[in-house]
């Protein structure tokens, strides 16, 4: 039966909110940090080499890529959407980068950045103009991008020897820090600042928290959506370039794993799928948790068949703790 018209007096939602108030929830970020610490401790107990320099390096380089694509994904989740095209985009950028390095050298990097921004812009436009949910829109564009990647190069391609010099710079170190890690840090700060301290970034939060109110308060919803999806395209493109450079080769199926991994990193960090709450720091913790889990389970020798289910449990539990049920009456 339809909800009764909330014509007068306090509404049904208020009732929900008051019951919700009684058990003050712990901010999701504390849960995420605790989870990370507990996991590091457990894995270190399980295998003392877990915290060895070599292993830490493995974890950080995986987490770094996941963080960069996750930060972009987070922007779309913050406005209450989702970007399933990051996988296809990463695959496409990966092979385009290698092919472009052969022909235009260093210009391949800005080219790939614009490919990412363009893909995000198209996603945003489909969403606002054709008015279909981001879940479907990006599922579609993701499929297109995956095909394009395979059309550009059906098989993995290696970086041409002429570009080794360039890639050595990318993979080099500066004052003892790998350049890729420094780049990740720069991108993290970029997202942190954009989302937290610019009007465009705040508008993402407002829109995600209450789209109708945002519209009524004069926020340009269309532009905000485009912006969030362009941030996602940017993150995915950079992540793809990072991985391609560190592996000296492009792979037309590279992005596949990152679709769900990036979403997982965002939600495990405590950014709510309903939008409006969360942030860059959450995704940092989330990416680290996934990196630590992925690596740690292998290091302590968890049965490979079990690993996916443990990951699944962690995701369900974290979303259960962060999901704002007061916002949705019905779960679809």
């Amino acid at each position, binding site marked *: *039966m*339809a909800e*009764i*018209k*909330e*014509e*007068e*007096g*306090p*509404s*049904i*939602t*208020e*009732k929900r*909110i*008051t019951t*919700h*108030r009684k058990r003050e929830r712990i901010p999701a970020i504390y849960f995420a940090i605790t989870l990370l610490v507990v996991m590091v401790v457990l894995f270190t107990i399980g295998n003392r080499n877990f915290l060895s320099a070599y292993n830490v390096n493995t974890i950080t380089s995986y987490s770094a890529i996941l963080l960069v694509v996750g930060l972009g994904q987070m922007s779309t989740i913050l406005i209450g959407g989702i970007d399933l095209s990051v996988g296809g985009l990463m695959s496409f950028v990966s092979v385009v980068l290698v092919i472009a390095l052969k022909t235009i050298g260093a210009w391949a990097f800005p080219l790939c950045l614009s490919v990412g921004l363009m893909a995000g812009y198209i996603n945003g436009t489909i969403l606002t103009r054709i008015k279909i949910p981001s879940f479907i829109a990006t599922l579609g564009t993701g499929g297109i991008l995956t095909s394009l990647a395979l059309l550009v190069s059906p098989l993995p391609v290696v970086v041409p020897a002429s570009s080794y010099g360039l890639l050595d710079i990318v993979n080099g170190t500066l004052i003892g820090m790998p350049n890729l890690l420094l780049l990740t840090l720069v991108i993290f700060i970029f997202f942190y*600042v954009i989302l*937290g*301290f*610019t*009007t465009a970034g*705040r508008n993402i*939060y*407002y829109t995600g*928290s*209450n789209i*109708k*109110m*945002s*519209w*009524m*308060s*004069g*926020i*340009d919803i269309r532009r905000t959506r485009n912006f969030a999806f362009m941030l996602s395209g940017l993150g995915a493109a950079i992540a793809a370039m990072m991985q391609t450079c560190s592996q000296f080769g492009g792979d037309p199926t590279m992005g596949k794993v990152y679709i769900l991994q990036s979403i997982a990193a965002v939600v495990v960090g405590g950014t*709510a799928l309903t939008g*409006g*709450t969360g942030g860059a720091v959450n995704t940092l913790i989330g990416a680290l948790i996934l990196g630590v889990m992925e690596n740690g389970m292998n290091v302590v020798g968890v049965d490979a068949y079990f690993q996916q289910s443990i990951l699944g449990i962690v995701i369900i539990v974290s979303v259960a703790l962060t999901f*704002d049920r*007061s*916002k949705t009456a019905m779960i679809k």
Partner: protein
Amino acid sequence: MKAKKPVLELRRVTKSYPGALALDAVNFTVWESEIVGLIGENGAGKSTLMKILIGLIQPDAGQYELRGNPVTLRDPANAARHGVGMVFQEGSLVPNLSIMENLFLSHEIGFRRFGFLSRRAMRETATSVLSLVKVTSDLDTPIADTTPAVRQMVEIARLMWLSRLYRQENPVLILDEPTTVLTEGERKTLFTILTEIKRQASIILISHRLQEIVGNSDRIVILKDGRNVTEFEAEHANIAEIENRMVGHTFAAERYRENEQIEPMNEIALEVRNLSKRGVFEPITFSLRKGEIVSLVGLVGSGKEAVCGCITGLEKPDSGTISLHRKKLALGSPSETVRAGIGHIPIDRRSEGLALGMTVADNVNLLVLDKLKAAGLINPPLEKKNALRMIEECRIKTPSFSAICANLSGGNQQKTVIAKWLSSKIQLLVLDHPTRGVDVGAKEEIYRLIRNLARDGISMIIMCDTLEEDIGLCNRMLVMKDGRLVSEMSCSLARKPNPSDIIALIV
């Protein structure tokens, strides 16, 4: 009168919401085979009472008896099983299913033959059930293609059939403003049918149209501020007396801070010329002076909401112009109107006024983020400063500027919405039921803010919960009826009109 038995009895039912007592020990009885008219102003507790009757909410205290047995209704489906149902203002039918499918929706089990639904049996029952309400449309017409009158009849028929299915004698049907969507002729038909149905059921009728209630019910119950005021046989009713009872005598002069009412400045702030929206309101022209409070009154459907929607940019008019301080506004775009300096306190602050999951500071600063920047970036100390200033100015009771809005009381949430507009430079504020669902203390504060705004030269269009409030707050009143501006009257401090005069114009 014959000795009738009570079907439904509420005894001393109380329901409170945070900061507001919606029902205060209300008694309500429905007898067999009667039409009882329930009246009261908005906020008198009618809706809460209805929600309790159909199990949508549970009372905090009091007893609910059906046919002499105490019951606890868990939800509307459960209420239907007990023979209590409601025809909703907006309808609860599924638009893309047919009349017949809607009639039996989710109760088709009785028509199962060999594991399949027998459409023939359904058809037979449907025809007989619908004849009760005189619906002769094709049973396969999708509900979306039917008139509101037919939809209403299908809902009534459905409720009658459900009570028969669950073997409940004399079901209780609740009709909430059933005539707002009907034409004159359809209204007559509705009441003829209701009189017929009355032989085997009881009907609770809610309507703003007092004539309708007096003319068609057997008994009238009046609620005010969540309490029983009075009840009497409809035969002895007279409308003027009902109006008096509804509005109440306690018209305290100082309640709306009338002593702070100011004469508006001479400068014209808002000019609306020939604004119209087809089928909603006819061309309307009016203006507001600087610092003037104009109240727009009229029934639901009078077009006042749409006029405000056009001014705030939420709706696009078909013709006409709106100018603010001689500058024409782009129509139908909230971002343009907000930029031009028009603010809007929406009726439903939870879904339209606030980012509930965000902090008080985030909400208050929404419109002025660009002014809270240092070196091109939003500066947290400036944010905090502005938020604290507005919290202080609007007296928002919050544990801190970084408290989540969802945890504030209704009144303080409303003050947060007002603070948001106050902190930006607005010239016109449209207040859509600004005190709905807030407690008395918060109401006072909101009135104070409204007076302060007027003193600062901000013009306001208000639509209030009660006529008293409209009269008390405004400088001038515009009365709308059926999409037309029918009257305009001064509400200057010296001569505030009488509520009953205005009711006569509205109805």
